[in-house]
């Protein structure tokens, strides 16, 4: 295989060979290579295919702006990713690389027929066709279009890697470790300022890595760089490489993604693949540099056509000569240096073709000295070569007229259309840009963030200028942070500066309408497409972008936006600043989902709250259900039991003897203070003033719109102390709402709220034997009907543990809720379990609790109510303290629609054929009406009831409370079920079972 490695050049380590595969074939590279540099070193330019026309493509850049050389990369099972930029991915032994968007192979791709149909596939063609015949869209056209989608293939396996994140605070964050960033870091690293310097590349240095001929402060640039980096480290600067600033968010928060393992042959233990850093910086210095612009001409996309600066980087940083016989095509001085460097590395530069009629004398002089032919005032009008460029067709241009062509044989075309500052992160700040007519480019102007730009990122040329600007910006930032910095930039020798002009499409003598002059390489957007869009009325640059997809590829317009703007402006006949750029948005370069999800995967996606009894339930084989963040025991199946059987057994056990239930997840709020009762009066619908100490009451909480928000039993422990319970899911919400009213509406009240949800774990005992089981264990309270009637509460000792004992029932049976401090809950549970054995105590879960409460007509907020239900709708007018002057929701309840007739009321339903209704099923009065039917309600709860001997249901039905005994119909897909409206209480309406 041909080697294009130039001995002695570059920063790669020739003594450390690395082997990898590309489309199954083995290639050798060396440590420090990227996939692109290693393939180029092997003479391989063809690395990908474009999106629409499947044109063969090679790398056009040497960095993260690459649109063409996108590959798939794999590291064993589960570790595959598409669309990786070959110009960024470092190689390691065993890396598997594959090409994409081709079939059957990269060099022979059937999809390339699209290229032949090029004239048909003009911008936006799909909006104009595929409409007839009408039925073809779903069956023929759309499937066809969809098959053409995408570049690489999606991963199909779960990702075995882990990802991480951290927060980082610093005084100064510097993005980009080129000369400007380095100098800014040096200047800012004074008097303990915390400075962070990041660069996306494997090593710091930026352009310095590609300019080995320089001397700084009299030393070879790379020596200077090495020592400068150690000085910065010694000054405490945190230098992060392989770290991309992906987005600039509000108030100087910058997101970084650090790549930790993608470059390593073996994965170290306990090391995530990537880490997301959320950096909050006092000041941000953007020193991102500039990006070179391609020239737009017919055939500017063949493998071997690349940016001149990239060729320079491949040579000087990677020691790779991208062509032996390159042609340089440029409108800017900088490409001349590329020509000189390549010539100096053994290439025979076929010509320097410059579009400008004249250039600096020293450049001409050096070209002459090196023996490079020069063609000034020329254009390029075509190239040839299928999988690699073979020649370039160039013509002189005079007075706007394109003269006769000559064809220059070559194996690479190194082009430069000048440079454009990297404005991406600055634009994320919604910073304003200013048009610079001289450089025909936008430069950063104002931003509201505490942010400055340094170096090439604001249009400055040359390493000296970058260093000086960086140092000045660094000093400025230090001054803004109250520190005096005196750092000065070092002196540079051998600096090569330059200027150029901006071109739109290069002039041509061929039919411009047929030219394949690419602006956005990946999306195959040509200059012609842009002009077509303008012609069709797309006069906003945003329309042009969306109509042509220019700038929407994975490089996000890094190479195409400014060329696109210039061409569109020309087509519109308007100056560029009136046309404007499209918006740059995060991320700066595509960012893995893994890094963005970081720790929030699996168990940590959302935490799971568990009660102290949870482990016991798990050991018993309980099935769990999620309720808010909690997981709760749902039912406790015995071997061979399904859910229905288990629930049936659990229900029977509670009604027959005694059941034990973990109610610890109930929200609890301690309301304390002299104004506690006033507060309760205002928050809840119910009256509280007369509730005696030691008594409890069911409380209903509304929003100020009058709809039910929450409920719970509330005990009065002292005149100035209430123990409030809330629903499991509502705990945080209710506390927030109470704090809101207290702090905002009634700040004068002397009352305070403390969450005790997790202070107290709650064990509920229910059943005819509950009191018998509990009484012997209780000290301080006499568990008789007289001394401790239903709806009592007390502080006492249970099983020797300090407890708050409530006599309440959510099942209709004699019930107690024993609250003990959470650390003691398991002790209590086990004691009750042990003592309960003689009563055949049965643990039950939330499902049984739901059945038993439904049999008694107790509502579950959020199931039987849905945010549109008033207390009256729910049949709980009794809970509303009508004589109270005000409570939250009272005024809302009086609104016209809330007092209207025919609201939906909560009622019971018994099916006439004894079948069980489906929760959510809709109810109608007239089963024979056509669709759309007039629906009058829905089933909110439905269970088989062992106690009733048939299924029962709760439902919201229009005017239901006035329709007792009437029949309603529930149309199901296969049949219609008739049901009778009943009251909501199915079991023991007189509450006789509640008595001890």
């Amino acid at each position: 295989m041909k080697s294009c490695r130039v001995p002695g050049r570059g920063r790669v380590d020739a003594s450390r060979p690395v082997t990898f595969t590309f489309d199954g074939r083995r290639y050798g590279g060396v440590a420090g290579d990227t996939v692109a540099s290693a393939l180029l070193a092997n003479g391989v330019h063809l690395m990908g295919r474009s999106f629409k026309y499947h044109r063969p493509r090679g790398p056009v850049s040497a960095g993260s702006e690459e649109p063409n050389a996108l590959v798939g990369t794999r590291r064993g099972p589960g570790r595959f990713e598409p669309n990786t930029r070959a110009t960024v991915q470092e190689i390691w032994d065993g890396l598997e690389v594959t090409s994409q968007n081709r079939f059957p192979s990269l060099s022979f791709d059937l999809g390339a027929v699209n290229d032949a149909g090029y004239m048909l596939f003009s911008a936006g063609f799909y909006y104009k066709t595929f409409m007839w015949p009408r039925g073809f869209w779903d069956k023929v056209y759309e499937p066809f279009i969809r098959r053409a989608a995408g570049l690489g293939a999606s991963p199909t396996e779960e990702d075995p890697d882990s990802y991480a994140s951290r927060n980082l605070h610093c005084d100064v964050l510097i993005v980009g470790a080129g000369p400007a960033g380095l100098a800014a870091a040096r200047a800012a690293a004074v008097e303990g300022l915390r400075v962070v310097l990041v660069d996306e590349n494997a090593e710091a240095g930026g352009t310095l890595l590609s300019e080995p001929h320089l001397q700084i402060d009299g030393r070879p640039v790379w020596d200077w760089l090495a020592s400068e980096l150690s000085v910065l480290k010694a000054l405490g600067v945190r230098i992060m490489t392989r770290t991309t600033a992906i987005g600039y968010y509000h108030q100087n928060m910058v997101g970084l993604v650090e790549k930790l393992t993608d470059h390593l042959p073996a994965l170290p233990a306990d090391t995530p693949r990537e880490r997301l850093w959320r950096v909050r910086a006092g000041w941000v210095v953007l020193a991102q540099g500039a990006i070179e612009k391609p020239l737009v001409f017919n055939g500017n996309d063949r493998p071997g056509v690349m940016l001149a600066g990239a060729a320079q980087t491949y040579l000087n940083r990677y020691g790779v000569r991208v062509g032996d016989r390159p042609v340089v095509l440029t409108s800017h001085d900088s490409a001349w240096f590329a020509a000189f460097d390549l010539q100096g590395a053994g290439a025979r530069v076929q010509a320097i073709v410059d579009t400008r009629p004249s250039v600096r004398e020293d450049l001409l002089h050096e070209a002459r000295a090196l023996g490079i032919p020069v063609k000034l005032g020329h254009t390029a009008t075509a190239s040839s070569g299928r999988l690699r460029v073979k020649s370039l067709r160039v013509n002189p241009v005079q007075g706007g007229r394109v003269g006769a062509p000559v064809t220059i044989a070559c194996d690479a075309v190194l082009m430069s259309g000048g440079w454009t500052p990297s404005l991406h992160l600055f634009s994320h700040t919604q910073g304003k840009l200013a048009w610079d007519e001289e450089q025909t480019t936008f430069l950063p102007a104002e931003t509201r963030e505490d942010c400055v730009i340094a170096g090439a990122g604001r249009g400055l040329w040359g390493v000296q200028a970058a260093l000086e600007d960086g140092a000045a910006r660094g000093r400025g930032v230090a001054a803004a942070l109250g520190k005096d910095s005196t750092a000065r930039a070092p002196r540079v020798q051998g600096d090569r500066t330059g200027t150029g002009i901006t071109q739109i499409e290069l002039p041509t003598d061929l039919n411009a309408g047929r030219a394949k002059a690419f602006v956005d390489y990946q999306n195959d957007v040509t200059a012609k497409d842009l002009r077509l869009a303008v012609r069709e009325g797309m006069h906003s640059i945003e329309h042009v972008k969306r109509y042509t997809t220019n700038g929407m590829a994975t490089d996000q317009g890094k190479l195409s936006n400014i060329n696109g703007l210039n061409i569109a402006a020309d087509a519109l006949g308007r100056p560029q600043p009136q046309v404007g750029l499209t918006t740059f948005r995060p991320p700066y370069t595509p960012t893995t989902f893994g890094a963005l999800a970081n720790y929030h995967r699996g168990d940590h996606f959302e935490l799971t709250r568990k009660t102290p009894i949870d482990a016991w339930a798990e050991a018993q084989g309980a099935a769990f259900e999620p309720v808010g963040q909690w997981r709760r025991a749902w039912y406790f199946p015995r071997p061979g039991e399904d859910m229905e059987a288990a629930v049936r057994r659990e229900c029977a056990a509670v009604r027959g003897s005694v059941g034990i239930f973990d109610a610890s997840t109930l929200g609890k709020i301690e309301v304390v203070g002299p104004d506690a009762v006033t507060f309760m009066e205002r928050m809840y619908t119910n009256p509280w003033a007369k509730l005696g100490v030691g008594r409890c009451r069911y409380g209903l909480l509304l929003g100020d719109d009058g709809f039910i928000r929450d409920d719970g039993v509330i005990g009065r422990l002292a005149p100035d102390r209430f123990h409030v319970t809330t629903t499991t899911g509502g705990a945080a919400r209710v506390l927030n709402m109470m704090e809101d009213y207290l702090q905002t509406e009634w700040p004068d009240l002397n009352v305070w709220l403390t969450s005790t949800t997790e202070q107290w774990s709650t064990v509920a005992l229910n059943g005819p034997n509950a009191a018998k089981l509990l009484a012997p264990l209780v000290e301080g309270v006499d568990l008789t009907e007289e001394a401790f009637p239903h709806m009592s509460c007390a502080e006492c000792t249970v099983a020797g543990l300090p407890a708050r004992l409530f006599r309440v029932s959510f099942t209709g049976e004699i019930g107690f809720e024993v609250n003990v401090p959470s650390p003691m809950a398991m002790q209590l549970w086990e004691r009750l379990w042990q003592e309960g054995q003689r009563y055949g105590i049965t643990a039950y879960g939330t499902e049984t609790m739901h059945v038993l409460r439904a049999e008694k007509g107790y509502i579950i907020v959020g199931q039987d109510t849905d945010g549109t239900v008033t207390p009256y709708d729910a049949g709980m007018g009794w809970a509303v303290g009508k004589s109270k002057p005000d409570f939250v929701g009272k005024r809302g309840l009086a609104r016209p629609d809330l007092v209207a007739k025919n609201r939906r009321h909560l009622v019971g339903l018994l099916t006439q054929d004894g079948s069980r209704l489906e929760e959510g099923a809709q109810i109608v009065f007239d089963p024979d009406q056509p669709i759309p039917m007039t629906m009058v309600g829905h089933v909110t709860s439905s269970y088989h009831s062992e106690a009733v001997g048939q299924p029962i249901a709760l439902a919201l039905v229009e005017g239901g409370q006035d329709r007792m005994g009437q029949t309603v119909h529930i149309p199901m897909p296969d049949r219609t079920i008739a049901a009778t409206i009943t009251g909501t209480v199915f079991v023991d309406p007189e509450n006789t079972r509640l008595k001890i």
Partner: protein
Amino acid sequence: MNKLVSSFTAAPLPQGAVARVSLAAPVARLVLRARGDLAALNAALGVTLPSVVGHRAGAGEIEVLCLGPDEWMLHLPPGQVGAVSASCAALMGSHPHSLVDVSGREVTLEIDGPRAAELLTLGCARDVEAIPVGQGRRTAFDNVTVILWRDGPAAFRLDVWNSFAPHVAGLLETGCRELAAEAA
């Protein structure tokens, strides 16, 4: 992830060279709410309640952290709860306040080691280093409300509600391993 489920049995926690996490011995915790003249409460508690959010005070075995303009967290030996509660209760009429025992609500994780502060950056968005030694803050760790006490440059305590502790400890454990790998 089940380790701290009941939160009260000291489970093995990560022990790294650069950062360690361990479970602190149980302590009694009281939430005190009051406003206005605090002199009487100070006297009853035997400690002057700090009035700046985040500031701490201590006397004997009582440790107080000001959490809000009218809110304090008290850590004290379990045996002293009764006495403290009683002396405060006696003031209820003259100095309205709220004292609630939350000893069972949360656990305390101790975090130390040279990179303890960095470990906390896994979950804390605020600048942990900026909390002065000897102070504390209520803050969020990966969206979980926690109370962070800074006892030394590299020594912290983190109070976490029981049911959130496994999640927090799990993340800290991951972080300890990452930091150890980084240091290696």
